[in-house]
């Protein structure tokens, strides 16, 4: 038997504090969750998809990186494969560009126009973009290529949802 015996008064105050604490936590927790919900949501929307591309293998020459995610169209769920043009710029920073032409949505290719081997080229209406994705004036596209946010995890490249660039 312990020497410091717990008095009835002490026992009651301890249990009341304990139970009261649990109840307070039970009430507060959902409230806090509701309050920070927008923060949690934003993270879910910025989901990153794994690609097979190793970050270490990237050079300053754009390569096509394919990645697949699930898309739901009404009740029909399907795997959608999309691509990105990925390279490292002169400073060694990774750039991941969407291949979707800003004119009418064709797929642009790197260097497929013989006259402009260091530009992205859209075969549909001969739109061109420089390596950093800026649209070449005088060609049909009116905006630069969208950019994918990216992450590096275990040496592999992860891509998020392509975002339009603000500066035109």
């Amino acid at each position, binding site marked *: 038997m312990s020497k410091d015996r717990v008095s009835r008064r002490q026992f009651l105050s301890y249990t009341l504090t304990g139970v009261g604490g649990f109840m307070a936590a039970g009430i507060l927790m959902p409230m806090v969750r509701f309050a920070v919900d927008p923060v949690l949501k934003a993270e879910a929307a910025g989901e990153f998809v794994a690609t097979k591309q190793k970050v270490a293998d990237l050079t300053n020459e754009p390569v096509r990186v394919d990645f*697949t995610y699930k898309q739901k169209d009404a009740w029909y769920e399907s*795997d959608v494969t999309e691509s990105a043009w990925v390279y490292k710029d002169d400073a060694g920073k990774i750039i991941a560009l969407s291949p979707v*032409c800003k004119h009418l*949505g*064709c797929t642009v290719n790197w260097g497929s126009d013989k006259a402009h081997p260091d530009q992205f080229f859209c*075969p*549909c209406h001969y739109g061109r973009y420089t390596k950093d994705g800026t649209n070449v004036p005088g060609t049909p596209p009116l905006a630069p290529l969208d950019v994918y946010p990216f992450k590096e995890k275990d040496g592999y490249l992860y891509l998020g949802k392509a975002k339009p660039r603000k500066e035109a």
Partner: protein
Amino acid sequence: MKWISQDVETYLTAKEYVDTAVVPLYPVSLGEGMKQSAAAVEFITLLTAYLEKQFTGRILLFPPFTYLDSEQWDNILSDIHKWEDSIVASGFKHIFYVTSDLEWRSREDELNGTLIWLPSIPLEHMNDSQKLTMIDSQVKQIITIFTQKWHKND
């Protein structure tokens, strides 16, 4: 652009840029040839969808022209000529037919558009990434047919 309301709406506002119609040709046979017909349809569907992705801004992928295998060819041809007339009348400059039905090869001259014939590759035992690589390599070859044709007229 696909034959869905959203894309068709875009098409109507950008008509001058979309000058190429792509019409898949689907043979339907019942009985013995059923499985083969299904495999062909599966292959061409996937292929044209990928093709549409590459050339979204310049082609309109039509709903497939579907015909019974047992139908008289005179009837099939007269039907497709009706399609052709309407497509041309609505302002398309190029028509491409995509099919894996061998019969069209011998009737290519009777068509007004360009026929792209591909042997159907069975997809049933492939996984998704194999399918993608295979379709990708096929479409790469077809792409040059399109760009050449466009270059001639632009």
